[in-house]
């Protein structure tokens, strides 16, 4: 029997992200699968590419400094979770964590975890959706510090009415 209240965790934090603890908190007795995404600070970017509207070339990063509009960010994380549950009614627990402050290469900065009874329930797709949406609508920004100087990273997504 599934409980009617599935656990949801949202947090903007300066603390280290404890994946073990977060997965445990969203694991029910009916849970058999967790899909987890974590993002880390890259110290070396080798690919030419475009992320969040910024074209980038290979470069080194000394550290990133994250800031958030914390109360709105936590509300938007809840919205991301609601959107996940609306799309995949199989999802049991959801954790969405953004670490802020000064973060060095190799450090996990963000986590999205979704649990479900089985792995074929959309749990991978739900986690992927979660990180994509976090990068669109959750008000967090980062400034990149490089050997050559510093630069605010700006995204490109413009939320629509009601988002």
């Amino acid at each position, binding site marked *: 029997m599934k409980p009617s209240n599935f656990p949801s965790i949202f947090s903007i934090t300066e603390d280290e992200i404890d994946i073990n603890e977060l997965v445990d908190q969203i694991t029910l007795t009916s849970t058999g699968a967790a899909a987890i995404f974590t993002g880390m600070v890259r110290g070396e970017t080798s690919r030419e590419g475009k992320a969040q509207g910024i074209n980038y070339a290979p470069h080194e990063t000394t550290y990133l400094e994250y800031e958030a509009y914390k109360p709105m960010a936590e509300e938007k994380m809840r919205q991301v979770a609601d959107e996940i549950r609306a799309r995949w009614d199989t999802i049991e627990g959801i954790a969405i964590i953004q670490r802020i402050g000064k973060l060095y290469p190799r450090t996990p900065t963000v986590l999205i975890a979704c649990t479900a009874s089985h792995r074929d329930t959309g749990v991978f797709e739900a986690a992927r959706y979660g990180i994509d949406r976090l990068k669109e609508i959750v*008000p967090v920004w*980062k400034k990149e510090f490089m050997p050559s100087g510093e630069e605010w990273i700006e995204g490109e997504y413009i939320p629509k009415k009601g988002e």
Partner: protein
Amino acid sequence: MNKVNVLFFATFRTRAGRSSMEIELKCDTTVGELKNLLVAQIPALEASLHHTLVSINREFAFDEDPVPEGAEIALFPPVSGG
């Protein structure tokens, strides 16, 4: 009159040289009008304004939206978390 608190984040905080300010608005001021008032007071904001996100009471807002009384407003660039 409608006194609102405006928060600035990321590049907007840097350009404004502060993280928030209070401003008095006439009733029925819209978000678009508020942006113009802010640029009039802080010209450095102008360069960022073509790509501004605005929130009212922690929901995204748009130029035609009215600013409710005592609202918490924020101005910031497109988000870049993760």
